């Protein structure tokens, strides 16, 4: 009974924390939006509007109201799901972003599969061979991935693998030729093309996806490798490892069944956090590969100073991060008996 009360208390305090963080996030995006040098009225009415029209729109946008009132209005808009209209496309910002999101999710999901598939075995190998040559090579290899400017690696990879070797597709999500051949049902090109039974489009999409996803995955594997290594080292130093060996288990069995089994939960939380930070790399890699996703949408609007779009994009990234943090926290609490 007391336990349940404690849990309720911790849940409610966590909920307050999240609400405050969200409010802070909104203040931050509001401030960024207000600081932007682009004149939102000018952007709507155009360069050669009369003074009256200008004044009227200025008033309509509420820019003549005190700043706190403007903030409350922004808060009200966001709460009712109104994120404003993009000046560039003339569409509601949310609609634009929802259309761009699947391309980024597709890219990021493949990237995280590659990153985890690379990082976890490397981290385990490094930990098992601590301070031996394997450890050093893995350390340099993963730091290399962490140090490369991903937009540059993207270009070099395009020159080598696309222009010279011709192994993969170039920029975009598929060959120009196939664009419009598949109906957009889910927005995920791989799924859509499979649903439509268009295998050519499917392979073209895979061909275009593989290079940016590998680069993103490699860059995120650095973090995963480092964390896996340090978690594994903690486990390998424990006495139960010796016990397991004495019981007659092989070295491989103790490593993979016992030590690795114990770090699975921690790894899931790490991978969830790495998934969020892929968004950062996505902004740059989407620019290089002309990938029509969230990152490209953000940078295009930044350059022309489309306030509503930028504010909403920043807000969404913040919310994604909060949700991922919360998820990894919840996972930890659910699976780790010590936190009960």
């Amino acid at each position, binding site marked *: 009974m007391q336990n349940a009360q404690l849990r309720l208390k911790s849940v409610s305090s966590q909920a307050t*924390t999240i609400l*405050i*963080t969200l409010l*802070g*996030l909104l203040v*931050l*995006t509001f*401030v*960024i*939006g207000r*600081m*932007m*040098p682009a004149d939102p009225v000018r952007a709507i009415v155009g360069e050669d509007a009369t003074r009256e029209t200008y004044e009227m729109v200025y008033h309509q946008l509420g820019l003549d109201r005190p700043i706190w009132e403007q903030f409350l209005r922004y808060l009200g808009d966001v709460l009712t799901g109104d994120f404003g209209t993009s000046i560039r496309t003339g569409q509601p910002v949310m609609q634009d972003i929802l259309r761009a999101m699947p391309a980024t999710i597709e890219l990021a999901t493949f990237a995280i599969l590659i990153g985890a598939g690379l990082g976890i075995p490397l981290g385990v190998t490094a930990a098992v061979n601590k301070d031996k040559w394997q450890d*050093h090579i893995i*350390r*340099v290899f993963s*730091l*290399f991935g*962490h*140090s*490369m*400017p991903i*937009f*540059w*690696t993207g*270009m*070099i990879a*395009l*020159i080598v693998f696309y*222009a010279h070797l011709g192994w993969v597709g170039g920029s975009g999500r598929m060959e120009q030729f196939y664009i419009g051949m598949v109906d957009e049902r889910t927005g995920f090109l791989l799924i859509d093309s499979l649903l439509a039974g268009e295998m050519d489009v499917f392979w073209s999409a895979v061909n275009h996806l593989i290079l940016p996803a590998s680069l993103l995955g490699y860059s995120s594997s650095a973090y995963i490798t480092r964390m896996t290594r340090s978690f594994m080292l903690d486990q390998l130093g424990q006495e139960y490892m010796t016990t397991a060996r004495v019981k007659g288990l092989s070295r491989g069995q103790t490593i993979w069944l016992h030590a690795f089994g114990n770090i699975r939960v921690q790894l899931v939380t790490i991978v969830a956090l790495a998934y*969020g*930070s892929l*968004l*950062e790399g996505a*902004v*740059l890699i989407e*620019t290089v590969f002309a990938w029509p996703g969230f990152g490209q949408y*953000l*940078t295009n609007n*930044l*350059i022309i*100073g489309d306030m509503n779009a*930028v504010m909403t994009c*920043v807000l969404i*990234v*913040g919310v994604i*991060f*909060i949700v991922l*943090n919360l998820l990894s926290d919840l996972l930890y609490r659910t699976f780790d008996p010590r936190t009960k």
Partner: protein
Amino acid sequence: MTVKDTDMPRQASQLPSSLLVLRNILTFLMRSPTSAFGLIVLGLLIVIAAFAPLIATHDPYAQDLANTLKAPGNGHYFGTDELGRDIFSRLVWGSRISLTIIFLVSIVVGPIGMIVGTTAGYMGGRLDTIMMRITDIFLSFPSLILSLAFVAALGPSLNNAIIAIALTAWPPIARLARAEAMTFRKADYIAAARLQGASDMRIIFKSIMPMCLPSVLIRLTLNMATVILTAAGLGFLGLGAQPPMPEWGAMIATGRRYMIDSWWLVTFPGLAILTVSLAFNLLGDGLRDALDPKQMNRR
């Protein structure tokens, strides 16, 4: 354990003991090939930046329209760009921009993070909660995205890029300083200082901050690779240093149009960024080992 000697703010013994510590750390770093590489590269970077006018073979801004997009060789080590400017000389001068960014970001971020973190950690209570909430909000963004938004708000330029990076880089430092301050808060020497009538302000600045300094410095070094990459990313997106400045990221952005036929336009600036950021990462990795108490005990 020699590390702790730096924490003593004694006027008389400070110089020799801190120099000794520095020497110990350097010998430790030079023993591992990877951190030695980092140290040497960064030393080279500083030398190149300091003697840029002597090392550069050409004026980094001088256009030579008769010799555009020339491949490496013939007096141009790394070739020429679309306006006939010597890429090697532009890279050499660009090292000054990179060092300026690192330096300015560090001297802004270090003190801000220290003050916020130590004050929150030492005072505790409501002030701590409020300050850490603000820190958390900043931490809930990937640094590049938040810098992007700030630059968009301030307008694209090198100075604004530096401000934007600094605005996003202080929270981890504050977090660290707070954690450190909280461990020292209950120490006897702090209680002694308080009994002697020292004000909170004096305790924070004179007794807590010097103790937090070493770990904050390491954290700053570790952050520099990220700072370099973020600055280059901003430059690449056209939101950082503006052409014709020889900033490495901006050079890649302009070279992008010619990359298929003239690979050297993007290859060399990218290698420069990669080398410097790798050097910082390797050095940071080595520093972490050098100052890790577990490692120290083992030796």
